[in-house]
């Protein structure tokens, strides 16, 4: 089971890389989701294609979850305040740092961008520290 999990993780990751490649090859755009959301919520006509990407993202996720998933994704709930605060920090941080796991992680590393490497290492470290503090205390 663990092996199958890792294989599907690798394959799923490969599809994400393919997605970024398709967008770059066809439209010349970087598939960074935080930038995608920031552009989409300007509601300008020139940015409207971002809504198509977001629609596709939902379609693709639904297609997997309800058509192909071996078992349904767990639907655990979480403290609402943690979701809101987490979201707030992610929104602030990704705009300030120009990207998230997809923009810096998938696309930036693929372009061998030094800025992206620094960003990825930084958010991996602070993410791990945060989980350490929450789960294991100081």
């Amino acid at each position, binding site marked *: 089971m663990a092996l199958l999990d*890792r294989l*599907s*993780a690798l394959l*799923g990751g*490969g599809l994400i*890389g*393919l*997605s*970024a*490649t*398709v967008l770059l*090859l*066809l439209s*010349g755009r970087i*598939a960074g989701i935080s930038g995608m959301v*920031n552009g989409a919520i300007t509601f300008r006509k020139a940015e409207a*294609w971002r809504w*198509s990407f*977001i*629609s*596709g*993202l939902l379609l*693709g*996720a639904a297609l997997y*979850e309800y058509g192909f998933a071996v078992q349904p994704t767990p*639907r*655990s709930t979480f403290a*609402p305040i*943690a*979701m*809101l*605060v*987490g*979201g*707030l920090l*992610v929104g*602030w941080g*990704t*705009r300030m*740092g*120009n990207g998230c*796991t*997809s923009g810096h*992680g*998938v*696309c*930036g*590393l*693929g*372009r061998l961008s030094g*800025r992206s490497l*620094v*960003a*990825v290492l*930084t*958010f991996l470290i*602070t993410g791990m520290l*945060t989980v350490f503090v*929450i*789960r294991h205390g100081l």
Partner: protein
Amino acid sequence: MKNHLAALISGILFGFGLGLSQMIDRDRVLGFLDVAGAWDPTLLFVLGGAVGVTLIAFRFVLKRSRPLFADKFYLPTKRELDLPLVVGAAIFGIGWGISGYCPGPAIAALVLGIWNPVLFLIGMIVGSLAQKWTVAQSQTGQKTELR
């Protein structure tokens, strides 16, 4: 129209990939970040698969003079490692650790029909607009001082 189609196809691949790699389950992401607990390496495989593809494929794509449906590549031009990059990435990492969501998986997780990603995305949009507003304010402030 072509760009909408390209974005739609790319989005579908991205969403399916996130589902297949189990990244829409925030517990798997938190399991990866929890290096001192029962560490779950799944995210490393996802990142490995994704970057493995972009590292190779982007080279070929960026050798072209232009994309198929557009006049030019829209690539980030900044090179320098500045403070906003590091501070922003650090703040993002903290939010990621608190919630277990980053923007892509959070949007994809909307299809699960639970409140977690909805609340997260509300917070995320508010946070992003607040940051934008703060930067705009400080820039107007600077301009006024110059006058």
